[in-house]
């Protein structure tokens, strides 16, 4: 009986917005998504990291926009009619926009079907993922928004610089 109920038990159901970067699919926890907007004029801010594309105006608020592709060391964005900016709410309540190639659909996943990814695990983009979700359509990598906080991005940049210096 016990075994059966364990198997049958349903974990927490979480909805994810599934987005595409090239051929890859990523899931963003819908609870952190404030808004999804079409591509618009981004005001460039000089002297900032290359993945920071600039700022946009969301309901009168200045919101920084980052390129997920550039953060993950993929090719630069090609802006198409399907490109979107996902406005996510970070842990401190600040809004940040993420440029994605396209938004696929909303996916509901049982937390039992999400496999945790350990930090440092050798997996493509592993450092930005909190887990991998399984569903009929295949696998979806769940983005860990914490890794997109300014502090963690900066410390990553610093580590890279050090590595660069070391290899030189």
């Amino acid at each position, binding site marked *: 009986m016990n075994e059966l109920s364990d198997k049958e038990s349903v974990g927490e159901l979480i909805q994810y917005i599934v987005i595409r970067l090239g051929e890859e699919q990523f899931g963003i926890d819908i609870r952190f998504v404030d808004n999804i907007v079409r591509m618009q*004029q981004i*005001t*460039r*801010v*000089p*002297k*900032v*990291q290359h993945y*920071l594309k*600039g*700022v*946009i*105006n969301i309901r*009168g*608020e*200045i*919101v*920084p926009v*980052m390129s997920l592709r550039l953060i993950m060391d993929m090719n630069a964005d090609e802006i198409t009619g399907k490109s979107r900016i996902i406005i996510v709410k970070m842990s401190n309540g*600040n809004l*940040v926009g993420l440029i994605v190639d396209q938004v696929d659909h909303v996916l509901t996943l049982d937390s039992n079907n999400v496999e945790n990814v350990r930090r440092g695990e050798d997996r493509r983009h592993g450092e930005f993922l909190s887990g991998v979700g399984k569903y009929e359509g295949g696998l979806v990598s769940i983005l860990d928004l914490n890794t997109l906080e*300014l502090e963690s991005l900066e410390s990553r940049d610093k580590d890279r610089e050090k590595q660069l210096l070391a290899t030189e």
Partner: protein
Amino acid sequence: MDVGQYLGVFLDESKEHLQGLNDNIMTLEQDPTNEDCINEIFRAAHSLKGMAGTMGFKRMQELTHHMEDVFSDVRAGQLKVNGDMIDTLFKCLDALQAYVDLISETQDEGTEEYADIVKALSDIRAGKSGGGAQASEKTEAAADAAPAAADAASDAPAWKTIKLDNNAKSSIKDASEQGKNIFGATVNIQESCILKAARAFLVFKGLEEIGEVILSEPSTQDIEDEKFDLSFSMVIATEESIDKVKEVINHVSEIDSVDCGEFDLDAVTSAAEAAEAAEAAAAAPVETAPVAAPAAQAASAPQHEAKQAESAKQPAAQGGKKAAGKPAIARTVRVDIDKLDVLMNLVSELIIAKNSLISAATSEKGDSGSVNEQIEYLESVTTNLHESVMKVRMVPIDSVTQKFPRMIRDLNRALGKPMELTMTGEDTEMDRTVVDEIGDPLMHLLRNSADHGIEPPEERVKAGKPETGQIFLHAFQDGNNVVIEVGDDGRGIDAEAVKQRAIERGVITPEQGEAMSEKAIIGLLFNAGFSTAKVVSEISGRGVGLDVVKSKVESLNGEVDVRTKLGEGSTWIIRLPVTMAIIQALMVKVGGETYAIPLDSIQIIEDVAPDEIKLVQNKEVINLRGSVTPLIRLSESLDVQSNQPENSNMVVVIVRKGDQQAGLVIDEMLGQLEIVIKPLGKYTSKCKFISGATILGDGEIALILDTNALV
């Protein structure tokens, strides 16, 4: 009476009155005979007392009352202002402030009675007058207790509060023992009546025919002399019924109304006893208590009774308040009426725009021209509306700084160092949230200056400085920042001493200390738990000052810096962004991008031909009316490609930073615009040249250049 809705107003006004009292008492200290000042103080104290009473804050009212008495004596010339008195008064103000603070947190004044201050205040008065004052004091207290009570009193018939002497009491007893009816009556004579005394006489005469007038108020003599207003009261013993009494009185012409009823000796006696201490009017609600508000009930009774009533009432009231779960006091901004008028006008315009839009939309199709026109109009209105609302949030910093003179005065006494505070720029406006937060850091810095900065007078004289130390606070707007400088002409910061202390405390190693610049060492002062005061004192030196200042200022996105010269003093400089401030800016284009340059940093705009540019130390400069001005090509600083042809004339915006100036080369000028500054957020704040952003009329974002960082 539910006074909860007035709590906000009460708190606001109390704070204002307290501030006014503080200011005026300080003036009084300098100029003890300033009559205007004394009157002003008296007025403020009186209003404060009245307000506290109305709101039912008995303890606060009581304390204010004692303070008011002192002022009243001063005003009457019976008391002289002296140092001790001022000190006591300040203590009293602090206690009142504590009440107000507590009320704003818990909506309750608490139970502290500040008996010591009350005693000190009475001692001051006792200096000139003995026990005689006591009685009148109580009378006043009760009379002023609660306007509500007084109101209630005036509604109650006056005969119920008639004062009885022993003779009257015994005659009433005798009369009732004889089986007579005892009635009380209050007669109101018509306003138009010319011969009041005659009418009153007729009333008495008529009543004497059916019974006996035991007592009247005013006395029969006074009534005969017409020494009464439009009404008088009396107690009658008669064998007739109450209707008969009324009939007799009404029989006299020019009588407006009569209030008549059974006279209950016991009830009236207790009321009358109360009236021994209190004026008749105020005591009335004891009788009419069931109809009067509970607050008035406690207020009107003489003090010993009041306390009982109150202690009984307190827990109930507290319980009630908690149960109701009222939210804490809402934060408010006092708004200049002009600003509101502008808002009102804008809203009217908005409605007009909406209506025009509706009519344009419903009229013949194809008329998109007028729709567009209306939309443009709508846009401009909403933009203005937005800006106006932002302006409403801006308050001058004097709401914070006005406390400081008093603080320095207290420190002056506590430390025994003469010092003076000068303040400028208190009208500098900042967002309400920033102003609220900045008070504590400023206070810390001023205390620091007073305690650590200013030397003892002997030391100052030895150093050839005037005995009185100077402390200053200057506030001014500098571009998108508000700068507040706090400093003194004291001993300055001894970097060597700081270093030694830092090494002692293990903050740095001696080797590190050797390697550090003077500036870096002084920067150590901002470390938590660092204080150089040789003696830990009340004023500062608990080592919680500067690090708190720094973290607070940084949490407001500002920065704090210090300039110091040993022996000459130090200045702390706080720079704060004026979040949501509105500034005038020059909009320019550089490489196709739009930027805003704050207008107040711009000196002049020049048209410069390429051949005017000279090279000095490999840097481009121009000779601007005799002064060599370096050129900064904005397109290079901002990493964009200028789209101006190489050899054409250049538009150069000359900006000033302190005593330096520089020319910013732009592509094109767009014009002047009033812009709302928005913070860029931490992700994009890395670029030092950009101090913020603004949203243009078309929804696009333009970045605001920080010319200070560029020059």
